C-alpha cells in the first residue's frame, strides 16, 4: 500500500483536531487591544458624592483596578464576594464603573440598594449613565476588570466574573509585581 493513501486520513485528523480545539475555546475571551496602552481618560460624577468627580488622572501613582459593574448584571453579583475579599485583603484601590444602571439620572436607586445589600468595597464609584466611558474601554460584557499601573497604563483585562482562581493565579501576583515598579 502506498503511503499517499494515508494523506486524506492525516488531513482529516488534523482538521478534526483543529476544529475540536475550536469547540473548547471561549469565544467571549476576545483579546483586548488595550493591554500596554494608557487607560482612556474619564472624568465622571461619583455615586455617593454627586458634586465630586473621579478621573483616571486622580489615580496616578497607584496600582489600581477598575471594575465595570451594574446592579442589573447577574454575574456581578456572583463575583462581588470574591472581588470584595481581593480588594480588602490586598488593599487594592478599586474604582467601580457603574455602567448604564437603572435610573441613573437621579444616580440610581437600584445600585444604592444593591451596594447596601452586598457591601461596597470600592474606593470610588464613577457613574457612566450612557455607557460612553464603557465604549472607550471597549466594554462588551459586564463585569470586566482592568488592572492599571502607576503610570496609568492598562496591564491586564479580565472579562467576566472574577473567580478565586483568577485572583490567586493572576491578579495578586500581578498587583504585587506592579507595585515594585517605579511610579
Amino acid at each position, binding site marked *: 500500500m502506498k503511503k499517499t493513501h494515508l*494523506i486524506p486520513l492525516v488531513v482529516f485528523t488534523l482538521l478534526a483536531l483543529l476544529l475540536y480545539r475550536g469547540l473548547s475555546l471561549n*469565544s467571549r475571551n476576545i483579546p*483586548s*487591544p*488595550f493591554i500596554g496602552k494608557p487607560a482612556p481618560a474619564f472624568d465622571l460624577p461619583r455615586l455617593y458624592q454627586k458634586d465630586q468627580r473621579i478621573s483616571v488622572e486622580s489615580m496616578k501613582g497607584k496600582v489600581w483596578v477598575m471594575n465595570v459593574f451594574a446592579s442589573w448584571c447577574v454575574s456581578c453579583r456572583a463575583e462581588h464576594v470574591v472581588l470584595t475579599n481581593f480588594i480588602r485583603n490586598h488593599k487594592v484601590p478599586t474604582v467601580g464603573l457603574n455602567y*448604564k444602571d437603572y435610573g441613573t439620572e437621579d444616580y440610581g436607586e437600584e445600585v444604592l440598594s444593591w451596594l447596601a445589600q452586598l457591601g461596597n468595597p470600592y474606593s470610588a464609584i464613577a457613574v457612566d449613565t450612557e455607557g460612553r466611558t464603557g*465604549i472607550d474601554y471597549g466594554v*462588551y*460584557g459586564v463585569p470586566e476588570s482592568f488592572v492599571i499601573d502607576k503610570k496609568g497604563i492598562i496591564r491586564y483585562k479580565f472579562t467576566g466574573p472574577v473567580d478565586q482562581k483568577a485572583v490567586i493565579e493572576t491578579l495578586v501576583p500581578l498587583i504585587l509585581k506592579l507595585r515594585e515598579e517605579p511610579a
Partner: protein
Amino acid sequence: MKQSIRLFLLSFFIALPFTLYAGSIETYTFKTPEQEAIYKGLVKELRCLVCQNQDIADSNAELAQDLRRQTYEMITAGKSRDDVVDYMVLRYGDFVLYRPPFKMKTLLLWVGPPLFLLLSLFFLVKFLRNRPKTAEIELDKKQRKSMRNLLK
C-alpha cells in the same frame, strides 16, 4: 367560531414579525444621503460583541444601540468610514469587524480555505489520473455465447 379563531391566529402570526421589527431600530436622520450610506454600510460591518453572530444593525442589545448611536454621532460630525472603523478597532479589536484585516495573524483565516480547496482539487485530479485503468477482458467464444444468452 372556529373560523374566526383561525383567522385571528393567522393574522397574529403574520403581524408578529412587524411588531418585533417596529421597536428595534431607532430612526436617525442624516444631513446628506452620503452620510446615510456610510452609516448603513458600517452598521452592517460591525459586530455586536454581546451577541457575536449579529451585526449591530440587526441586534437590539444595549451595546449595539450604543454603538449605533456612536456611529451616527461620528458620521454626522463629518467623520469618514475609516475613522469610525479605527475608533471601533481601537476599543474592541479586530473582532468587531466582520471583515477582518489581512495581516499575519489572520493569514490562515484568509488564505486557509482557498488553499484547502486548491490542495483538495490537486489531489483529486492526481487521484483520478493515477487510477489504474480497468483492463479489458478478453472473452473466448464460449463466454461470448453465454453473455449473449444472458442479454437476450
